[in-house]
């Protein structure tokens, strides 16, 4: 898993693809394939018959999956291409779709970006291929993110239920207990910073993914999408809960405003000066490689709660594989998807360090019992799996979240430079979102 993958926030949203797109399946050059229901036998036949598949993805564990897949179906030739990570990938994909040539058959799609492409009628509905029957295969968060009403726009590949990753050594040195609620989190932040002015409980320089996930956990629904009607309210109860708490953290200088994924950030994580991160379950591999000096110091705890004793979490990051509408061999492409994300490919990817979206693996005893050396032998998957099942439902992303996140630093980011309160920053972000949406033909209300 690469870094930018996680930075961009994904999410499991009840993906808000527009209803308009649901009727679009038949419009491709081989429209017939998508419009008629296909049986598993038809899919197997397509796999046996074979053909060439172009897959665009940056998920590194797919290399091995493709290798195994080609060994099992010798007539299929899969070309796996990494055209960029995160936004670069979407730019390339959008360009190929606009140009109408060179479009891959299968593409990786982060949960937060999926609605932007399904609404553009760029992704094929997989329900006619039997994808709807996989609903109990995946945990509800990721499944909600790839479905819209009866349409299925991809099969979940991984997920990012959130948890509190913390440096136990730093916490012990300062005599601070692991916070179970956000109130305790603020108190812990004060104590940590007081014990050593270079130590901060966490780092945040204004990250759209983090902010939306925090609002999500707090029960906010800032984005509501129904067809092309979008309602934006970044001052709802959930958003306000987040801004009030985080504003206090910023005012008292309790957050290191170090941009994520920079050298400075990794150094801070490695030397204990950034003592904790509230982020997705894909983080362990990144800590191991980026903050190696702190090996053995880090632990995982459940995400802090808004009310003591509650068990509510949100998702941050994660992606699916989707079939493009432009693909001329959707049945074959779907066969690959099923293999990679519901079949034998899943185990291969887990071995490579992926955090699963599949229920069977999330509850698998061997998976739960795995002890992580980096985390001092803690069975971290127990905590992370628990989080996956406690995700607050009903969250939706904007059908143009990729754009919205790109202007987050212009608006909310200004609150991190001290020039404006967080609530005003969110209001400015809302203004940008509403303006852009209306320009793009949506009906955006506030």
């Amino acid at each position: 898993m690469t870094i930018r993958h996680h930075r961009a926030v994904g999410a499991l949203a009840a993906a808000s693809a527009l209803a308009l797109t649901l009727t679009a399946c038949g419009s491709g050059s081989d429209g017939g394939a998508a419009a008629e229901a296909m049986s598993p036998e038809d899919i197997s036949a397509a796999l046996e018959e074979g053909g060439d598949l172009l897959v665009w993805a940056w998920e590194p564990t797919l290399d091995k999956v493709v290798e195994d897949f080609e060994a099992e179906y010798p007539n299929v030739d899969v070309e796996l291409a990494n055209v960029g990570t995160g936004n670069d990938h979407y730019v390339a994909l959008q360009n190929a779709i606009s140009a109408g040539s060179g479009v891959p058959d299968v593409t990786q799609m982060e949960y937060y970006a999926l609605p932007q492409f399904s609404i553009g009628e760029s992704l094929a509905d997989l329900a006619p291929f039997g994808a709807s029957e996989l609903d109990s295969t995946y945990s509800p968060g990721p499944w909600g993110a790839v479905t819209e009403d009866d349409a299925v726009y991809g099969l979940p590949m991984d997920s990012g239920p959130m948890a509190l990753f913390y440096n136990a050594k730093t916490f012990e040195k300062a005599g601070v207990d692991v916070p179970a609620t956000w109130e305790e989190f603020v108190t812990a932040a004060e104590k940590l910073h007081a014990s050593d002015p270079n130590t901060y409980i966490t780092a945040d320089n204004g990250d759209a993914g983090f902010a939306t996930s925090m609002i999500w956990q707090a029960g906010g629904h800032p984005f509501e999408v129904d067809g092309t009607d979008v309602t934006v309210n970044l001052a709802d109860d959930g958003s306000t809960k987040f801004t009030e708490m985080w504003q206090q953290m910023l005012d008292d200088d309790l957050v290191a405003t170090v941009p994520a994924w920079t050298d400075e950030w990794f150094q801070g994580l490695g030397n204990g000066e950034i003592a904790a991160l509230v982020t997705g379950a894909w983080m362990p591999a990144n800590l191991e490689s980026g903050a190696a000096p702190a090996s053995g110091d880090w632990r995982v705890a459940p995400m802090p709660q808004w009310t003591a004793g509650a068990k509510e979490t949100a998702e941050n990051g994660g992606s699916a594989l989707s079939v493009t509408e432009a693909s001329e061999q959707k049945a074959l492409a779907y066969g690959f998807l099923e293999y990679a994300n519901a079949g034998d490919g899943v185990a291969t990817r887990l071995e490579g360090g992926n955090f699963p979206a599949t229920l069977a693996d999330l509850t698998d005893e061997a998976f739960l019992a795995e002890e992580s050396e980096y985390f001092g032998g803690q069975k971290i998957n127990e905590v992370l799996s628990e989080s996956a099942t406690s995700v607050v439902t009903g969250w939706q992303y904007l059908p143009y979240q990729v754009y919205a996140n790109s202007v987050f630093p212009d608006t909310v980011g200004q609150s991190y430079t001290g020039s404006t309160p967080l609530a005003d920053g969110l209001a400015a972000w809302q203004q940008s979102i509403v303006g852009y949406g209306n320009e793009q033909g949506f009906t955006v209300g506030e």
Partner: protein
Amino acid sequence: MTTLASPPAVPKIQGRMRRRSRWAGWGFVGPFMAVFALVFLAPIVYSLYLSLFQTQLVGGTSFVGLDNYARALGDPQFWDGVGRVTLFLLVQVPVMLGISLLVALAIDSGRLYGRDFFRLTIFLPYAVPGVVAALMWGFMYGDRFGLVGNFNDLFGTSIPDPLASVLLLPAIGNIVTWQFVGYNMLIFYSALRVVPVSLYEAAEIDGAGPWRVISAIKVPAIRGALVVATIFSIIGSFQLFNEPSILQSLSPNYISTHYTPNLYAYSLSFSGQQYNYSATVAIIMGVLTMLVAYAVQLRGMRKEA
């Protein structure tokens, strides 16, 4: 007599020859024109075409005439970027060209020990790719682990993080200056090399000191080069993109998506998929740059005459 009888034939032959030579000329510039049309004219025409339409995520593409232009002219984000590069231009370009001229004169004076070494080292930053240079300076500017941090630790000063304060634009100016001083120095130096030595000899006989030689002979002699370097620098300033774009990941809250007009056009098309509006911004910026560069050229020429 024959000459009287045949006059009509002469123009005919000449005409044919002229016609043939006209086509021969095209043959020579043809390859250039083809490439020029492909990589220069075609993109401009396509941008102009794009700028007259609007493509929406919902609703598709429609012809909107000059709406995009009207929008750009009233877009505070666009003017914010234009204002920033203009300020950059007014401060950074004189500083950079001043240093370049000083260095060129010093090297040309013949009094410098290790002249060739000096010339090469000053030019060297230009050979560093812009992206690498911006990354390198980005690390040095760090106030925790970078050079600025070390400096603060050593001398007990408290210079704020250049990338997260009002020092940001000067910090970018510093990178650009560092990179282009050598390039401009070479332009000036080569112009100085072609000044006839006899002028210096004459000046010496007339009793002119070195400063007098500089102000009366050297600087006027390289005015053409000064104008060219100024125009290049103006274009470079208006197109400022590399440095802010690379440093953006280190300082996203200070380098907005509309920090410079080029960065704005880039963000519009690559994260907002507003290709039409992006093309409009690019065209307006191109016209603006052309106007300023042309004004400078006219002024430079007039002085020269």
